[in-house]
């Protein structure tokens, strides 16, 4: 890593605590302020570098690296793989997104217990998540790659349909669905702009920029994290990690974003 970048990052913690513990009101300002100070440097690079190392290192009870992990383009092929996920995998007979496929590889190839991996699925301060680091690495290797999801397998079509159904499913004390906030153009919550996820343009803007380094949290977050936090705000129960709805909704939105070029990990407020 460039020394200047590392130095800037050390100052980041204090800045983040000072400037970003605020309401959504100033969120766009926070992002602009951040960019003015740090330019295009993205702390996600730290997660990407750690993820690459984790990918290549022999780890777990079976002392294996992830070199044999098939993300859909063949064992060990990382470049461009994220732009073609979620997809059907014959070995598990399931449609998997990146997060669930990483779980599969880490349990099957390396022998990690699934429950332990799920406990640390989201990093929290000092306790960093290996899954988030691996996701950052894999997604970074798809920068510039066009999202392509032919959905030729019937299970992929079923996952798309489930994702669409989940998007419009109204429930909970507040009657919210994803569509409540994300089906119209030029809408905001407070000052936070809302992507219109029902159009190619809006879905691309959102989907191609996740995973993202989240300034307000000081963590890199994956798309599944984004989804489960939306559901929290919808007043729903907790979305299970790597669940059918998590994968289906990711696939539904990725399909709408098809043709967009991946630009993640990005920076978000």
């Amino acid at each position, binding site marked *: 890593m460039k020394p200047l970048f590392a130095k800037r990052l050390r100052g980041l913690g204090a800045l983040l605590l000072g400037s970003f513990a605020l309401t959504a009101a100033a969120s766009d300002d926070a992002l602009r302020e951040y960019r003015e100070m740090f330019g295009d440097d993205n702390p996600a690079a730290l997660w990407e570098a750690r993820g690459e190392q984790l990918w290549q290192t022999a780890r777990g009870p079976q002392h294996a690296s992830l070199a044999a992990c098939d993300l859909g383009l063949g064992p060990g092929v990382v470049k461009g793989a994220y732009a073609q996920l979620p997809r059907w995998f014959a070995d598990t007979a399931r449609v998997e997104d990146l997060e669930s496929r990483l779980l599969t590889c880490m349990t099957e190839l390396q022998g990690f217990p699934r429950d332990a991996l799920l406990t640390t699925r989201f990093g929290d301060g000092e306790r960093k998540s290996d899954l988030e680091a691996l996701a950052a690495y894999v997604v970074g290797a798809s920068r510039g790659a066009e999202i392509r999801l032919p959905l030729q397998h019937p299970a992929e079509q079923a996952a798309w349909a489930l994702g669409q159904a989940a998007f419009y499913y109204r429930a909970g004390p507040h009657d919210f669905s994803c569509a*409540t906030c994300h089906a119209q153009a030029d809408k905001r919550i407070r000052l936070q702009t809302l992507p219109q996820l029902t159009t190619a343009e809006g879905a691309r803007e959102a989907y191609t920029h996740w995973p993202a380094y989240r300034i307000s949290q000081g963590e890199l977050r994956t798309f599944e994290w984004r989804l489960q936090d939306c559901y929290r705000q919808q007043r*729903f*129960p907790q979305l299970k990690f790597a669940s059918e709805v998590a994968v289906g909704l990711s696939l539904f939105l990725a399909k709408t974003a098809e043709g967009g070029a991946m630009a993640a990990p990005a920076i978000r407020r």
Partner: protein
Amino acid sequence: MRRLALVLWGLLNALPAQAAEPVNERLRDSFEAKNQATLERLEQDETQQLCTRYAPTDLPAEVARRIQSLNQSTIKPPADGQYLGDFTRGEAIAQRGTGWQSSDDPAKPAGGNCYACHQLAAAEVAYGNLGPSLYHYGKLRGASAEVLAATWGKLYNSNATEPCSRMPRFGHRGILDEQQLKDLMALLFDPASPVNQ
């Protein structure tokens, strides 16, 4: 080939409406209870079922009427007949975005989060635009018995007049209690409220 693709696309689009039952079960398998946000929250009442079934298309007129009548009958006027509470408390409720999330303390009063979607007092510039501006709400409309009752109805159950509204049914679903609704009414109508300055 293109025709086949079109047929397939049509079938896919038709799926959600037909597959309501299995989707419910699969939703249930994909969520887990967390604190106050239990799995019962995934169960839909008839209004939610109908709004889901016809989204994102327009509601057929008879379905719209059904939803309106289901919800109209739920509206309870204030027990003491007094619609207006305290606008200062109302402003605090309009500002507060917490309440009913799995991450919220259920012992603390819930907010209405009105500013998330509406402009209200001019001093608050951080307002959303999912709903219409409510600035000068009472000043523009006056406070006749009809206007008070209609506004109470809107807060209590938005679906009585606008089927499948994006606005929560604050009274009917118990999101806010009667006193909180009165305080919001005062925020909208009290001549001294910041909304009417």
